[in-house]
């Protein structure tokens, strides 16, 4: 099953602004493996080769916190979305 189809099953109330932020884009450019692209369970992060930057689809974030500690350079600024925003699991 494709991750895009999986995410389609999940209810999100996106905040207006991103709760995730790359601290220093230079660090991502130098990052050899860009692990966040793979280990994020919601595929929030993608490498944009033309922009030489990580894009953040924060609207589909599970707020699991894996990227906050899993980024080898701790280069992701992470907080919770505003109250009531973000993922709203229906089953859990």
């Amino acid at each position: 099953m494709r991750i895009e189809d999986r995410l389609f099953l999940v209810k999100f109330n996106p905040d207006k602004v991103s709760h995730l932020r790359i601290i220093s884009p230079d660090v991502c450019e130098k990052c050899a493996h860009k692990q966040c692209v793979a280990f994020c369970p919601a595929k929030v992060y993608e490498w944009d080769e033309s922009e030489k930057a990580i894009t953040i689809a924060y609207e589909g974030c599970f707020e699991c916190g894996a990227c906050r500690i899993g980024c080898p350079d701790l280069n992701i600024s992470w907080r919770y979305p505003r109250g009531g925003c973000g993922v709203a699991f229906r089953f859990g």
Partner: protein
Amino acid sequence: MAETARRSDGFDVIVVGAGPAGTAAAYTLAKAGIKVALIERGVYPGAKNVMGGVMYSQPVGAIIPNFWDEAPLERHIIEQQYQILSPDSAISGKHRSTQYAVQPHNRYTVLRAKFDAWFAGQADAAGAYLLTNTVVTDPIIDNGRVIGVSTDRPDGDLYANVVIVADGVNSLIAEKLGLRPVIDTVNMALAVKEIVALPRGKIEDRFNLEGDEGATIDIYGEVARGMVATGFIYTNKDSLSVGLGVILKDLVKSGLTPYELLDGMKNHPTIKPLLAGGEPREYLAHMIPEGGYQAMPKLYSDGVLIAGDAAMMVNGFHREGSNLAMTSGKLAAETAIEAIEHKEFGARAMSAYKTKLNNSYILQDLRKYRKLPGFISSRPQIFNVYPQIINDAATEFLTVDSVPKKQKQWKIWRQIVKKRRPLRKLLRDIYEGWRAFG
């Protein structure tokens, strides 16, 4: 002592997070007539919460007697199965007992979005002030003592004599208080899960169940792809919870996605038929604090107590967590009640919480298994080589092909020590493993 803590609009206790730990605390406090706020960032309690799905009755019943009459439960578990997979085989063991079929049932599968909303509703009905849609952004500290919390609401500062931090696995509040470091990825698992809908009758046929009986399967081996990971399938009324947890450090290093690991498990030849025809209804992810005793934070300070996942209270080997959360929430509440009686809110008064935890199964169990997380993370072979060894041996031994049995036994042994695990390492694994289980 800060004037603010005595403001008339203040609470006696603020609980951060309406999961099992926070709600258990708030319910216990409200029942004792304490003025308590229960703050939840989700649109409803449970909106952000995920677990595999097994809830243990005794700790819930210690808080709400006969909860099973009202709570949204899925199935009571009468059978627990363990499967050890190699790429093409599986060896399994299970325990099933009619003792688990009679009330009070020892354990139930639950869906947390439903269960947590119900549980927090009970706390609200008991008199706790449940505040949803609200993020606690910071602790408010005065003279080294926690006297309240800031929230993301306008004029959102709230004050209390005691703050119980139950904000879950990522506990930003415990970090901001300096009680918990940023957790190392070796001490965290990332779990992904799917809710797979299946008609009730199909579930009961496939898992050999009647009525509301349920079964669990915990899955080891091939699902891990050389990492420290385990999978699970738990039966709900008309769906299966199908998931997998992997130590985050291993996952990051592997370059694999968690959902491809999940797909790998779902497509394993022994798993696939159990899921056939199922319709995915939800996909979820959450972290699990797997580091055990050695990774626990400081559990209290002036005016503050930490409970549940925020305090890393998970017994990974026994897949227990929500029970530790509930018991710790209850013990935190009892500590707060005593503190209010004595009007003492300093670290010394709060240390009674640690004593209560020491006297309970929580710290006794976590201490017993304190070496286990380190043992396992230093030996991913346990999830990789040994499942292969066991399955190879079984296949060899059970294949009838006119080779004498003694010759088969010798062949199995040679394969193990020549190819899979040298004798010296094998013996060392057994010895260290024995010690790791305390």
